[in-house]
């Protein structure tokens, strides 16, 4: 388990994103317990209120559930939901910025499509 933080976004948001990624990649499996606020606080030397705020984001997104007195657990269907979210974000995060950058560099649509094809060919090798 490895977390990394920078100044790009609030800490609780980065924590939520990274926990979500760990759920997506199966480090924390559906139905399993994730580390407690206290454990994460000590592991990351981070204020537990920040951790809780991050975790609550995942509760709001129905990725985690609180079980009273026991802790936080990954909800069934979390992985599938995250896969769906990743696909939704794919256009915004990659395609839209790819087109913007291509325009900045004077690469036209045809050239960009050719580059994407080249990427596919290299990917096969």
């Amino acid at each position, binding site marked *: 388990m490895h977390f990394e*933080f920078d*100044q*790009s*976004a*609030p*800490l*609780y948001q980065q924590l939520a994103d990274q926990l979500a990624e760990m759920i997506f990649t199966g480090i924390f499996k559906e139905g399993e317990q994730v580390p407690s606020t*206290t454990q994460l*606080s*000590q592991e*990351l*030397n*981070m*204020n*537990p*209120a*920040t951790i809780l*705020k991050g975790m609550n984001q995942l509760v709001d997104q129905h990725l985690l559930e609180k079980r009273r007195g026991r802790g936080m657990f990954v909800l069934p269907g979390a992985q599938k939901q995250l896969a769906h979210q990743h696909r939704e974000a794919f256009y915004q995060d990659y395609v839209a910025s790819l087109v913007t950058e291509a325009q900045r560099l004077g690469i036209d649509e045809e050239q960009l499509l050719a580059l994407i094809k080249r990427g596919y060919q290299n990917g096969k090798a």
Partner: protein
Amino acid sequence: MEKLKVQTITKRYGRKVILDAVSFELQPAKIYGLLGRNGAGKSTLLNIITNRIFANQGAVMLGEQNVNNNQASLGQFYLMSEAELNLKHTKIKDLFSGAELAYGNFDFENARRMLTAFKISEDQTLAKLSTGLKTAAKLTVALNVNADYIFLDEPTLGLDANHRELFYHELMRTYGERPRTFVISTHLINEVQQLLENVIILDRGKIIVDEPVIDLLAKAYEISGPSNLVDQYTHGLKILTSHNFSRIKTVTVVEKLAEQRTLPDQVKVDHLDLQKTFTALTDGGNEGE
């Protein structure tokens, strides 16, 4: 546990006003950063709260009780500071028994575990330790003393990077086990940023920030780009610092940016970390005590 209320505290030395009608509240079981440049009045404030020196005006209240000369209330406060009571032959274990005597229920077991981690023996004499190990010994007392409000004035003085990490870890550990209020006054802002829930910034004797770190950072920005575009975009905002390099202008602001402000392509808006926010807000401050 009750709230601690600092009410319009003013402290003067001669004609010099060190604290100017300072008011704020500390909630139970939260971790605060008390930040300020040298000479801003941090240590004076902590000394007044813990009744070591007296204010010219104002009061410190724990719940409904004025803490001034009130032993029951003061028994809830512990201040770790640079000040040396340096009795020549005081051993670390004497500090432990002193804390037990004054506050009761000192956590000897955890204190001994921490000392081992710092690689100090409780039979060592305080005066013979290096600055860093002295700090480590004092921290060990501060994190194991039985009080609801713990004030740490420069708790990393002389600590090497490994020992600072250890301190941050031990703080989170003891806070997790028994939540109580910690007020950390330090210049190592980047290092403590993620330990804090709230931040209080003191600038030339006045409180200029008192809010959750998350809320402060959410409105702290650095805006950079071609001069004229930056000026256009930041029109009407209070510019805290401004820096020109070649044709690029970089300014900092700490206030909410209205959604309707349209961001020109060549202008970049980044969030500031706590240290940069602090320096932007206190840049007019004086240096030296």
